Structures are given as C-alpha cells and as structure tokens.
C-alpha cells in the first residue's frame, strides 16, 4: 500500500453535502416526531429520568439551532440519536463522578429517589436490570442503539463517534459481563 505523497496531494473539494429533499419541519412536529424515541434512548443510557430529560432537552435545542446545517433528510434521525447518546453518556459520567466523590447522601436527598412502590421491575427482568446498570454508559449506548433501536454496528459506530472495532469491543465486553452476572445470579 503506497504511503508516498504522490497522488495524495490533490486539493480537496469545498462542496457541502448536496441539498436534496430537505423540507424545513415545524418545531412542534419536529419535537413530536422524535421525542418519545429520544427520551427512551437517553433513559436506557443514563438510567436517570431527570438526566434523560436534560439530555433530550439539550439535544433538541442543539438540533434545532443547527437544523439548517443538515441538508440530507435521511441523516436527521441518526444525527438526533447521536446528539442524545452523547449527552446521555456525558450526564451518566457526571452523575457517577459526583455520586462517588462529591455528594454526601444527606445533601442530595432532592435527587431522584425511586418510589419503592412504583415501577418495581418485573421479577423476570430484575437480574438483567441490575446487570445492565453495572455496565459503563458507553457500553449501554452501544446496546441501546444496536439492540433496541436496531441500528447496524456500522451505523452505531457512526452515531457514537467510535471506530467499528471499538463498538464491537464494547458490545462484546458488555455481553461478557452481562452473561457473567446473569449466570452468577442463576446459580
């Protein structure tokens, strides 16, 4: 494989993506169309409803502000999912950091504390829920995008901004850990 400079010095095109079938959406329709999917995606990744809400809100604001820059309509959905996934990962890391190092429990009583009588997981999912919560947010993002939203691994890699092999590694590591915890739980 050539590594010489010869053919590698061509001036790059300055063209933007082609303007094809883009139709400017109205704000309400835009939010309604994507809200439910984005809230669920964010929640699966960051495991906190308030953080998920923040991630979705921030994503919508970023997306609406930059909407004019996106000229390929078929890129809209993965583009939004990408913003939400990254916001949710960031929120998850941040919560983890401060929960571990900065927040005495008695000072954060106003943070979300699940109602013990509501939303109790079905027994069939209890072990999976616990194991899934133990995964790093980057691995949860890969699983949510690939197995819940149905993106291929290539598309998932583009959305999370990581190489395909990294995404494969994250998926494999996540499965290994889930399998290990689930099997320990079943013994």
């Amino acid at each position, binding site marked *: 494989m050539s*590594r010489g*400079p010869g053919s*590698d*010095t061509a*001036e*790059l095109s*300055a063209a*933007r993506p082609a303007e094809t079938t883009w139709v*400017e959406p109205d*704000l*309400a329709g835009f*939010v309604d169309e994507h*809200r*439910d999917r984005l*809230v*669920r995606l964010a*929640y*699966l990744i960051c495991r906190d*409803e*308030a953080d*998920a*809400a*923040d991630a*979705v*809100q*921030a994503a919508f*604001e970023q997306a*609406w*502000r*930059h*909407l*004019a*820059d996106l000229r390929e309509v078929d890129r809209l959905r993965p583009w939004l999912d990408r913003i939400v996934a*990254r916001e949710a990962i960031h929120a998850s890391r*941040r919560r983890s*950091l*401060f929960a571990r190092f*900065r*927040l005495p429990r008695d*000072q954060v009583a*106003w943070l*979300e504390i699940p109602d013990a009588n509501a*939303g109790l997981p079905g027994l069939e999912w209890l072990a*999976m*829920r616990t194991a*899934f919560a133990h995964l790093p947010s980057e691995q949860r993002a890969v699983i*949510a995008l690939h*197995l*819940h939203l149905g993106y291929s691994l290539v598309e998932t890699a583009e959305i999370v901004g990581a*190489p395909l*092999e*990294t995404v*494969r*590694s994250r998926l494999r*590591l996540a*499965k290994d850990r889930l*399998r290990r915890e*689930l*099997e320990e739980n079943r*013994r």
Partner: protein
Amino acid sequence: MNSPMSDEQLERELRGYLDWEAGQVRRGPTSAEIIARISGTRSMTRPDRRLAMSLAVAGLCAVLGAGVFLGIRSQQPGQSGAGQSGSGQSGPAQSGPVASSPTTVPGDSAQPSGTPSASPAAACAANSYDVLPARADVSGPHKVPWGGLLAFAVSGYFSPPLIEAGKLEVTDGATGTTRIIAVTGSRLPLYADVHVAGWSADGRTLLVEFKDLGCDSEWLVQADGSGGLKLGDQPLWNDPGALSPDGTSVVYSTPWGLGFLRAGMPSQVIACASETTGPAWSPDGSRVVAVCGQQVTVFTLGDGLASPRGIWTIPDGEVAVALAWQSDGQILVAAASGANAPTSPTTIVAINPVDVTSPSVGQVAQVANWAEPGATFSPNGRWLLAENYASGSDVSEVVDTATGAVQKLPRTIGVGANVSISWLPDGNSFLYIDGTSLRQVTLNPLRDTAIEPFAVQSFLWHPALP
C-alpha cells in the same frame, strides 16, 4: 451445571428487557416543555421539587440582598474584560491571520432559515454566566514539584445560591496559591459544567467551555483572573476545540469541515469533503492540520482562509488515532486498521509539510497492536500514549516511536476519553486525572504516582507563569 448462555439467547433476552425498560420512563419532558424552552419562554426540565428549591433559594437571596454571586454579571459587548459578546457581535478589532474567503460556508451560528419564533440565542442569553473576579482561595492545594500553572475545572453541586455550578481555578504550582477565575451555573438547578480546553503558548489565556443546559459557550479567559472574552454560544460539536498558540482563535471539528472561531467574528466553517477530526495548530499558528475523511489535510490561515490541501491519504480501512504538529515542524500521524483489530498494527508516519504540494512522508515506526483513537504524542514526538483492547479489556500503553517498543502502563487511564492528559515539556512525563486524583506518569523508567488529592474534574497544566 447450566450451560453458558448463547449470544442469540442473550440478545433475545436483552431486547425484551430493553423494550420493557424503555417503557418504564414515567416522566420525560413534554413536547410543550421542550418547545417552550427552545422558544426561550421556560427553562426547566428538572423535577418540580428542584424547581421549588431553586425558587425558594432565589427568593431568599433576593431578600438578603443577593450577595456577591448575584451581583456580578457578565459585561456587555464592547466593554473590556469578562463577558464580551461573542460571535457575530461587536467586539474589539483584532489583527490576525484570518479573513473571509469564498472557501468558507456559514458556521454553526447560522440561524435555521424559516425558524419560527424559536430563539435559542435568547434562551441562552437568559442563562448568562456569572464571572467572578479573581481572589485567593485559602484552601488551595499544596505546592507541586514541577511548578507552572494548573487550570482546574471543578463542577458539581454547591451551596446556594449556586445550586449546580462549575468553577474554573488556576493554581500556581510553585507557590500553591489558587485563584478562582470564573464560576458558572448559577441559581437554577440546571445542568452546568466547565471544561478547560487549552492554554495559549504564553500561559496567559485559557480556552474554557462553559456548558449549561442547551447553552454551551466558549470563552477566552485570562489566567490572572482579569477578565474573559466570549467567543461563541454554540457547542463545538464533538471536541473541545484547539486554541491557537497566540490565544486568539479556536478551531474545532464539524461534519462539514474545519470550524473556526475568533472573537468578534461570526463562526465559520472551512469546508472540506468530509467530517474533520483532531485539528492541531502549527507551532507558528498560521496553519492547522486535521483529518478530513481519509485525508490528512493542512488548512492555511495566513492570508485568508485558503482551500484545504490534502498532504497524505490514510490507507483504506485505517483511521487516524493520533495527530500532532510538532515543534520541529513535522506532522506525526498514527494510523491503525480496524480490519483485524485488536491485533492489527498501528503505523506511525512523519510528514514534513514545508511544501504542502510535495510534502515528504516517511514511516517512523510500526506497532503490533491496534491503538484506539484519541491517542496522544509527547511534545518531542518520542512517545505515543495509546489505549487498546488487546487482552479483552482496556490497556493503556506507551509506544517508543523510535523503536516501536511498547510498555504497558501500571494503570488504565482512559486515554481517548481522558481530557486531562497533559505532557510536561521534556516529553518524558505526563499528568492525568484518575477519578479526582491528580497523578504523574514518568517514562523510562516507568512510574505512576499520585501527586495530590485534588478534587477536580479536569485540568490542563502549563509551564509558564503569566
């Protein structure tokens, strides 16, 4: 004994669980709440009890006379010091290398055409930041052995009236004196964060990102606490941007080319054929190298925003995992193939771009392992700090670029995601944050030691005193 769960069985169970779990979300923001926030008329998504808390605190502060945090606001456009207005607004006339050019397209400050009443800028302006004057912090950290300056970002939950806040601190490592330079976040319990993104070459200016819910902004902050200059109000896409050596301009990655931000100018994008990654300034600040698609590309900023020019094509199937413009003028690229990762090799290439139409390119070293993107070269180009999954888990390694020899580091430091990795000038040592602990790795011989029990989120070290 049960047989191990197959991949298919695990995926089937996972899908069922994910469908169920996603249906457990009891409360997301309603469409009306999202639209109201975007339109700048309402600014809450957090639970009502947090809203009630913030309103109670704000009311209490108003009654008590508000105190220093509420009394000091960002300065208005045209004023000197902190809070100068950003993109597209009037600002100080600044001489510099960049002028408009036909090669540019509107940057991401451009408003969507046909946007209804929504006004994100207005919504963000409503969350304007508090910038405090510098003051000594009596509880500052102890002296650190290498001296110099350390800029720390500290984010979290603070006492009222700043419910959620981020602080920017600068510590003089020689004396241990710490100054609080800026505080963001303020009175509402909204997401607030600070990131230190870079130092100017003279150690006088910091590039800082203040991140609030949906309202990210970039500031040039004087390290002595004398003021700050807002560059822009938009998030910089995927990375924190790179500050020019003279501390006046920022370049960042966008899906369409190289983003360029300078005080007093609208943001611009120098278009190239694909998404850019990893921009790095030349030592004299006149050019920028970035990866555009598969092309290692030089953007010349000297006399207008010239067309980007590819100087080396990364082989098909490979990605650039590290990119640096060394002080000796050479560009170093580490490229790795994902085809057979993690066992595929990483190749390190040096490019001498004296003449961008005919740069010399030579392979420096080849490493047996796949390196993850986000690897970083030492300032002298001797070492490549990288991470890989070679043994099925994250491993941090340092590669001797002269020999290709690899040493495993004692601790996994998250090279690609750790924004706090900061090389010391001799190129044989670097600092990083592990959790909230500041640590130093020295190479040759290899040693990893904790320095101080700093409680920080991110930091960048600079050798110069302001």
